């Protein structure tokens, strides 16, 4: 393999990885405060893209994206308050089933709302063929937007969770629900907040990746599965792990193109997931000890 091809694969891998990471972080936020894997996370990504595209017909791009994020956040809150909150004595099985049901429902509503056609936001900078030449490698500026958004998001989230009292309270809910209640924290609101937050993150991701991946009523599921794989790779609930896991999976996928027929690429990604689940269910980067400190 030439170094040029190697670098080009690497760039492709980083692109995929950043997209997956942003989805994985959405999973982590909800998992961290509730212990739920929200199988409808991918739908937030789809909604973010579709709503932004629709709004872009009427307003400037930044405003459309902002509004799309806010609308998706409202959807996230509604899902939590309409469905998750109403689960009496929720077993893991029932939570899985409900979030899967919600996911299908959102997708079907989207199908009948927007149709099955594919849409996309315009490239933020330049157009479909604009590329930046970094040494021997070609990169679309949108890739830089995705990677940048991913980085900024991770940093902001880390700051939010580490340095603000609200973030601390959300983490407290995750660490020990009873103790959080005893500290006077309204855990219900924290759960709603976590849905709002991850919906917002998903929507932003959906808008930023839309020029690259396009938006369509059913492209959330595929992203959700990749995002979940990444979340597991990095250790459920571990945002920095998700970054590492995302880049790893993205790069593996990109390089796998050179050995495995492309048609089997997804099977490779899922096989990686299974392997991790069997060997190190707490993830490649999480340690068993810290995982044990969490309640979930």
């Amino acid at each position: 393999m030439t170094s040029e091809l190697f670098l080009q694969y690497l760039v492709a891998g980083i692109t995929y990885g950043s997209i997956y990471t942003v989805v994985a972080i959405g999973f982590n936020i909800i998992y961290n405060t509730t212990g739920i894997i929200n199988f409808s996370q991918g739908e937030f990504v789809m909604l973010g893209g579709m709503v932004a595209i629709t709004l872009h017909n009427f307003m400037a791009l930044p405003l459309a994206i902002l509004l799309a994020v806010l609308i998706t956040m409202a959807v996230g809150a509604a899902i939590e308050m309409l469905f998750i909150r109403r689960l009496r004595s929720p077993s893991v099985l029932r939570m899985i089933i409900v979030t899967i049901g919600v996911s299908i429902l959102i997708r079907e509503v989207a199908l009948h709302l927007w149709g099955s056609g594919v849409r996309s936001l315009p490239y933020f900078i330049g157009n479909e063929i604009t590329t930046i030449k970094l040494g021997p490698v070609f990169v679309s500026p949108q890739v830089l937007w995705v990677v940048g958004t991913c980085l900024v998001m991770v940093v902001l989230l880390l700051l939010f969770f580490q340095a603000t009292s609200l973030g601390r309270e959300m983490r407290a809910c995750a660490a020990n629900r009873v103790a959080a209640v005893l500290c006077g924290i309204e855990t219900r609101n924290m759960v709603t907040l976590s849905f709002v937050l991850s919906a917002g993150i998903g929507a932003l991701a959906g808008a930023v990746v839309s020029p690259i991946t396009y938006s369509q009523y059913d492209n959330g599921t595929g992203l959700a599965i990749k995002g979940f794989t990444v979340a597991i790779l990095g250790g459920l609930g571990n945002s920095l792990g998700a970054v590492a896991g995302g880049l790893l999976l993205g790069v593996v996928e990109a390089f796998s193109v050179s050995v495995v027929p492309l048609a089997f690429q997804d099977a490779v990604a899922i096989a990686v997931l299974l392997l991790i689940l069997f060997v190190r269910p707490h993830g490649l980067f999480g340690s068993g000890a810290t995982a044990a400190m969490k309640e979930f």
Partner: protein
Amino acid sequence: MLKIRNLEAGYGKLRVLRKVSMHVSAGEIVAIIGANGSGKTTLLGAISGLVGATSGEIRFQDEDLTLLSASRIPARGCVLVPEGRQVFAAMTVEENLLLGGHPLAREKRGELDGLLAHQYELFPILRERRKQLAGTLSGGEQQMLAMGRALMSRPSLVMMDEPSTGLAPLIVRDIFAIIARLRQEGNTVLLVEQNAKAALAIADRGYVLETGKVIIQGPAEDLLANRDVQRAYLGREKLEG
């Protein structure tokens, strides 16, 4: 300050507390003692809202706590240090303490730094460990952290559930010394303990629970001398029927 009348509570079909009545006045240390399974923890759970009361009332500063959800009770000034510490294991000591300040009204959040300093003074070991994850602390340190966390919101009533459980005797002595000091600082303490002697030694008054009922109550010294208390711990006379 705290007045409980005919409280009944339990889990599902299991009724643990049967018509419990008791009170705590400001500035007191009140001990609740009794064997395992006598309902002590359930009583504290009911006061702090974790366990639903089926009947009776819990009046705290003229407000009925049974009507409030658990997360609203700390803001009223009634805080529980739970059994088994329940610290936020994956968070640092300082974060744990700051979370304890959550019930403070928004305008008083500025006092957090002062309160933090106060806890560090009360529990110097916590200052040394402030950047460590709480889960890595020893049992005694975790107990102190849990107490410090509860005191962060300057509660008018601190409830402590079995602070000595699983701790070495030397550390237990330290813990009780601190509880005694809390009272000197004007705090009110409701203490649930298995270690009856240690608890009664620092308490003003005490209640003895057995199978969910208050069987004896009175000043701590009287209870210490009471032979029935000893009986409650080391075997009852045989029952006929």
